[in-house]
């Protein structure tokens, strides 16, 4: 036996201690209650599934997923996202249900990541999927719900960057970029390597107009005026449709009163392959990576045998907790309303007392042995109780 491992946790995992866990539960409850008011129903799926399920959904399996074997030597994967299992579940179990599927989950996800504070290999996500609607109304609903959920979690200040997968795809088609260069361009965009992108573009034979847009690509951030400007510059129909789609979504988001949180970022490219339309990420100060992300994925359900447009998002519960903690807005104290302690022969009375207090909704701890009043005062302190009831 390796003694060194006894006290260690596996790479990328962590304990959630009292107080912290209480704050997390409270936050999850608020988020879940908010999801319900928007008409979303909770579901749960297995923690692990066959590798093939994730491989189909993601168009391949990444190095990030944690794999192991079952007793028949079939490869299993700890879920590396919730969108794929939900798509599988809806396609197989809910295909007869004709309603729009509005589903939510709060679940732990597993991915090999280079861990930092706020980036663990096991982490908790809350998210929704809206399946069966291709219209901008669905995307705007999902955006507005993402913002409302972050607010329900207690965040005030954040920015939602909104982009569209088809914008870049359209530009690449127009420029007739070969597969090898396209892969390199997508990589540079994903890594946000403006220098690398410029070097690739420099080598290609493109019209000056296209070259100018490609060179500006990673700096295409802005408001409504940016979309207008780009509609004047971009010729190909695919990119133009993407821009119009973004404008439609934005106009609906305005009605939800969330436009002030949204800014466009046409370089946004999420590192999951299944997105087909609008994509978004949410950022806030005090956190070096996004706290929420999502988008439209119209072709995934097809791989599970049911052609169905879909859109959704997930938010990182652990990251949001960390942001609130860094803003001193997270109450992780683990305190209680009352300690009930008792002297000689008073245990029956004490039980009656705690029962009565609990009925009033108080959080109550009860001493397990007979104490003196002075001992009881000490007990109250070390048990983090705000008041003491001593029965003598």
């Amino acid at each position, binding site marked *: 036996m390796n003694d060194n491992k006894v006290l260690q946790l596996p790479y990328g995992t962590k304990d959630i201690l009292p107080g912290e866990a209480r704050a997390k539960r409270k936050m999850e409850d608020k988020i879940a209650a908010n999801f319900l008011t928007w008409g979303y129903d909770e579901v749960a799926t297995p923690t692990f599934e066959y590798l093939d399920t994730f491989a189909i959904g993601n168009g391949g399996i990444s190095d990030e997923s944690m794999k192991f074997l079952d007793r028949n030597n079939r490869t299993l994967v700890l879920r590396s996202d919730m969108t794929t299992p939900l798509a599988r579940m809806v396609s197989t179990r809910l295909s007869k249900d004709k309603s729009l599927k509005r589903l939510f989950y709060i679940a732990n996800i597993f991915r090999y990541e280079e861990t*930092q504070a706020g980036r663990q290999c096991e982490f908790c996500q809350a998210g929704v999927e809206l399946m069966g609607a291709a219209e901008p109304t669905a995307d705007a609903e999902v955006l507005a719900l993402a913002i409302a959920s972050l607010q329900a979690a207690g965040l005030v200040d954040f920015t939602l960057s909104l982009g569209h997968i088809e914008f870049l795809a359209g530009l690449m088609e127009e420029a007739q970029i070969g597969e090898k260069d396209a892969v390199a361009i997508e990589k540079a965009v994903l890594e946000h*390597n403006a220098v690398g992108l410029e070097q690739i573009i420099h080598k290609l034979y493109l019209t000056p107009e296209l070259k100018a847009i490609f060179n500006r690509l990673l700096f295409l951030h802005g408001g409504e005026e940016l979309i207008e400007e780009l509609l004047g510059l971009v010729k190909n129909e695919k990119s133009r449709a993407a821009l119009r789609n973004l404008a439609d979504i934005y106009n609906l988001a305005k009605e939800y009163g969330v436009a002030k949180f949204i800014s466009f970022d046409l370089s946004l490219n999420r590192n999951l392959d299944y997105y087909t339309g609008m994509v978004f990420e949410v*950022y806030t100060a005090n956190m*070096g*990576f996004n706290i929420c992300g999502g988008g439209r994925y119209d072709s995934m359900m097809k791989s599970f045998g049911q052609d169905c447009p879909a859109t959704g998002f997930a938010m990182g519960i652990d990251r949001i907790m960390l942001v609130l903690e860094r803003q001193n807005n997270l109450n992780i104290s683990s305190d209680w309303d009352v300690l009930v302690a008792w002297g000689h022969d008073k245990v029956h009375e004490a039980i009656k007392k705690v029962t009565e207090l609990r009925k009033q909704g108080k959080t109550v701890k009860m001493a397990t042995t007979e104490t003196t009043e002075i001992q009881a005062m000490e007990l109250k302190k070390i048990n983090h109780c705000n008041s003491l009831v001593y029965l003598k």
Partner: protein
Amino acid sequence: MDYLTIALPKGKLFAKSVELLAKVGYSAENVVEDSRKLVITNEETKVRFIITKTVDLPTYVEYGAADIGIIGKDVLLEEDKDVYELLDLKYGKCRLMLAVPEHKRRPNLTDYAHLRVATKYHNSARKYFDKLGIQTEIIKLNGSIELAPIVGLSELIVDIVETGTTLKENKLVELDVVYHASARLIANKVSFKLQFERLNKLVKDLRVVLEEENTKCK
């Protein structure tokens, strides 16, 4: 307006970086390499400078402890941090080279398989040889790489070369370029989005200054 924190690397890129940033309005009193102050603030323009060890700089930016920074592409490739690379600043030009002692030169690159390679850039060297499909033993050193083949610690070296003089002095010949590098402006992912207007302007202004310098040189 929030403070913009700029990380500057100690060493050869430092002076030029301070000069360049001053030209586009980002300066503070006493931004010197051996500053006793760890953080130098300009209250007026809301800019903060921190001066870090070269290899640590991308880490400061990745974590958002600094919003932007200036660093060599060689360090970026070696450290492989998740940061945005915004602009090639064109100075601090150098190349990471594979070199061998003159008398040990062989006809083909593939003839060097299964040899020992001394380098400070072990990640870059590993990737380079993996790509070529050449198996080698990488020996990580922290300096004076040229010494390794002389005393028989390694047959090959992978090291940063600016002019090539040091290699020549030690009777080493350059075999292949692993990559070319120069100073880059990098940004934290989230800072880039939250302070976009300011950073976009900074990049534009820097482009103009670099363009001017370029024409002057010609």
